[in-house]
């Protein structure tokens, strides 16, 4: 794919179609952004983010940051599961242990990690429960709107190269990842996640030690985290301490029964019901978002406005984005901005000049290169994962 060769310097979002127009048309913060009156709070190394929970921290990115192609480190969302999170790491003592069903055990310092070939690519990180608060009937859990995601340029070592150095033995089934976080009481299951071996040795799986050219922020997983581009962030274990190769299918709590989706093509069940069979959630589905104009904005009749937004899918480039201003009756193809590779989101825009006053419903729908798109009605599942319904943004033209 050549995405590893992509240079960070190509990140010039101002050149992207739409961004300039948008900045001009919507200088400042869109109104109505904080409609649900959610509190903003500043955590270490972070800007003001929407507070979902404080201990452990779950912080959501305000939508206006998604006007940018790359999400700044201080604005990237935060999601921990267990209250005992690392708040201090001494790199002179920190080691990434690698072992289990391997020829040898490794204890890698940060310097050792940096000796492996460095790879870099831009990839969307998105929480499985992003958009959970939109499901009907409502679902208990993190009440995210659209801000549990971001587009970040990650750098680090290939997991494959590390596993090769350790020497994976035949008969290996899963690779298990453990971070420095732990449960506050003994019975709370430690947060461990696993990848099938075949997935773990794919070229693009990374042990990342940099985000956007800087060391990871503590709340995003300093000193190193797993990056599984195209898959939901539940696998992207933060503040890694140990990687263990196992010869049996790993099915502890956070793999089963947690983070499961219905085992059928739509990963859905009739709203309110339970699936007979489930599988672990894995690859992200296709999504697009309208970032501007924001819901409830007032636009002027006969003046052109750039409708703009973002689109991404789980590892397959976006083929096209279509936009409607009449609630889905007619559609036009949007212009797409810089292509940062198949794991990144793209920015899109569509210039619109409303010639009549009234209420309008703006919608956008993305399709990826293997034909995956977005549903008109939401597909419901009991955990509130994989929200990707076509969103509607109502605006007023006066």
């Amino acid at each position: 794919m050549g995405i590893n060769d992509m240079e960070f310097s190509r990140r010039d979002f101002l050149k992207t179609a739409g961004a300039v127009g948008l900045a001009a048309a919507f200088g400042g913060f869109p109104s109505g952004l904080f409609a649900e009156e959610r509190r903003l709070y500043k955590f270490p190394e972070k800007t003001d983010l929407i507070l979902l929970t404080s201990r452990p921290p779950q912080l959501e990115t305000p939508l206006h940051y998604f006007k940018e192609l790359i999400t700044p480190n201080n604005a990237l969302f935060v999601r921990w599961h267990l209250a005992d999170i690392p708040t201090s790491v001494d790199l002179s003592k920190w080691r990434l242990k690698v072992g289990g069903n391997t020829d040898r055990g490794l204890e890698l310092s940060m310097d050792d990690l940096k000796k492996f070939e460095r790879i870099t690519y831009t990839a969307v990180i998105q929480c499985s429960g992003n958009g959970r608060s939109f499901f009907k009937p409502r679902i208990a859990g993190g009440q995210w709107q659209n801000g549990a995601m971001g587009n970040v340029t990650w750098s680090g070592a290939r997991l494959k190269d590390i596993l090769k150095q350790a020497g994976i033995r035949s008969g290996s089934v899963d690779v298990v990842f453990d971070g420095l976080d732990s449960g506050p009481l003994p019975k709370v299951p430690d947060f461990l996640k696993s990848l099938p071996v075949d997935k773990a040795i794919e070229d693009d799986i990374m042990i990342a030690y940099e985000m956007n050219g800087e060391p990871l922020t503590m709340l995003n997983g300093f000193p190193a985290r797993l990056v599984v581009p195209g898959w939901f962030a539940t696998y992207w274990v933060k503040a890694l301490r140990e990687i263990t190769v196992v010869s049996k299918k790993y099915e502890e709590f956070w793999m089963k029964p947690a983070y499961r989706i219905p085992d059928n093509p739509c990963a859905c069940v009739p709203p309110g019901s339970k699936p007979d069979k489930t599988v672990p959630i894995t690859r992200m589905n296709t999504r697009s978002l309208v970032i501007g104009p924001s819901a409830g904005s007032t636009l002027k009749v006969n003046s052109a406005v750039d409708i703009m937004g973002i689109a991404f899918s789980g590892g397959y480039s976006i083929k096209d984005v279509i936009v409607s201003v009449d609630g889905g009756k007619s559609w036009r193809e949007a212009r797409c901005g810089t292509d940062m590779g198949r794991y990144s989101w793209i920015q899109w825009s569509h210039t619109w000049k409303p010639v009549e006053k009234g209420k309008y419903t703006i919608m956008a729908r993305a399709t990826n290169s293997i034909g995956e798109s977005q549903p008109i009605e939401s597909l419901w599942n009991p955990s509130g994962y994989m929200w990707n319904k076509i969103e509607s943004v109502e605006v007023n033209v006066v």
Partner: protein
Amino acid sequence: MKSIIILIALLISVVFIRLNTEAIAEDTSAVKSIILPVIEGELKEGAGKDETAAFCNICHSTDYITMQPRLPADTWSAIVHKMIVVYGAPVNEDDSRTIINYLSSTYGAGK
């Protein structure tokens, strides 16, 4: 008796929060540290608030409760039982009934 249990639960959570947010004295360049803000969660008034504030603040902040949409009583009941059975919340039968009643009447969706 009941207030003693609540006090113990409170103590556990206070000690835990302190451990987690204590400033770290070491300062070599290899060390990266942050100090997490301590944010007081606010629960609405109602019978059972004290039990809820004590037991449901041990493992996580009570905004885990307050961020939820209004949920039906059986969902609150399922959540409290999950905390006890799956995560080992040290809540006895009596207190769990009090907490479920509080959650269903204060943060409930009605029938």
